């Protein structure tokens, strides 16, 4: 469960488990992501977010080590106060870490909001998101801070996008440190 501010997402990972014959892939693990909103049934927006999350996870999980299996990631939104997609990304990565799945790299989600006056705000609240000119969400990988996933809402110029990317890459360091601390805390008790 990850909660930056008031946004809260609970992630559950099941796998590698036996896959249904219709879904199994002969050479790698089949990854499935289910995103459940806080209210209502999952709609088109959830499906599109599931696709983003699934392809991001597929890029880091070493699926070839577990062929013909299924890995299921279920994300439940507990509360939404802005930056929801990056919260889901962070929850997904921590779930992958906690399950002990073989990963090529870690990833973290960072949301940047471009204010009307040009300033860049990281991890905006719902209010700041509404007022912003553009919202960019990045998934940054831990190896060389490369970009795994981007989604934008609203329009921005090319320079602004590059600036947001640079600040997101810097912020990724803080998030990866948080992962390290959480994992250390979890395993220091045992």
């Amino acid at each position, binding site marked *: 469960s990850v909660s930056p501010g008031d946004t809260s997402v609970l992630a559950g990972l099941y796998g590698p488990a036996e896959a249904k014959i219709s879904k199994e892939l002969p050479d790698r693990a089949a990854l499935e992501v289910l995103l459940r909103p806080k209210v209502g049934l999952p709609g088109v927006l959830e499906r599109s977010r599931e696709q983003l999350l699934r392809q991001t996870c597929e890029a880091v999980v070493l699926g070839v080590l577990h062929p013909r299996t299924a890995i299921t990631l279920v994300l439940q939104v507990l509360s939404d106060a802005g930056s929801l997609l990056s919260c889901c990304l962070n929850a997904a990565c921590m779930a992958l870490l906690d399950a002990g799945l073989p990963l090529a790299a870690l990833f973290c989600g960072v949301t940047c909001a471009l204010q009307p006056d040009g300033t860049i705000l990281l991890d905006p609240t719902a209010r700041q998101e509404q007022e912003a000119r553009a919202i960019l969400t990045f998934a940054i990988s831990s190896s060389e801070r490369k970009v795994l996933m981007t989604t*934008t809402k609203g329009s921005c110029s090319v320079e602004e996008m590059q600036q947001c990317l640079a600040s997101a890459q810097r912020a990724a360091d803080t998030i990866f440190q948080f992962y390290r601390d959480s994992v250390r805390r979890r395993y220091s008790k045992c």
Partner: protein
Amino acid sequence: LSICSRTVEPLEYYRRFLKENCRPDGRELGEFRTTTVNIGKCLCSITTADGSALVKLGNTTVICGVKAELAAPAVDSANKGYIVPNVELPSLCAERFRSGPPGEEAQAASQFIADVIENSQMIVKEDLCIANGKLAWVLYCDIICLDYDGNLLDASVFALLAALKNVQLPLVTINEETGLSEVNLKQKNPLIMRKHPVATSFAVFDDTLLIVDPTAEEEDLATGTVTIVTDEEGRLCSVHKPGGSPLTGAKLQDCITRAITRHKEVKKLIDKVIKSITPK
């Protein structure tokens, strides 16, 4: 021998071409397939739609039909109309799509198109309002893929753009005495389009190579995809990279530069086609 290699080891077959900086169909890495667009009732043959367009990007064929209907605006946005895009991937376009409820790819594409319309502000919803709080236009944009050979998003955005440019909305007035709406079919106005977004898709191979306008075969072998939507001022309406191999900021910048060049080519094509169908 080469045919065997293509089915048995497709990745190796492709790598041999990519090493020479070209692709099996003879294109360069940065070259697009031939784009053709048919707009309007005569060429596109959807006579029941208010606006229609047929786009072919190589073998990928996408048709878009726009229907305008009247509805009451939502309570919290009384001066806004609605635009409802829907992308359908019927089982006739490719083997992998089964008939039944829309799959993940179709839903993700519909969401992408809705985001592009919203982000680029190509149609401002306030322009669709007829009477504040009482009546507004609803534009149902149905995008149907007739033949899937990769690069669905580019073709869909292009088809949508062309179809919306073709839409003629009749003048609607509200009779003050009866409170009913009167539709004047003889007087039609074109839709006010503020921006013209164009999408450019890339496929990432082996974490380093970027190729433009992938075919279905290339998409299956690729390790990732990137779609950039730009408008005429060079602003980014959408950078859509749904996972896949990681890219550096510099590679992303290359994609954006190519997308801006592509925008100019597409804009010229659309202007040429619109000019050819406008009655003089």
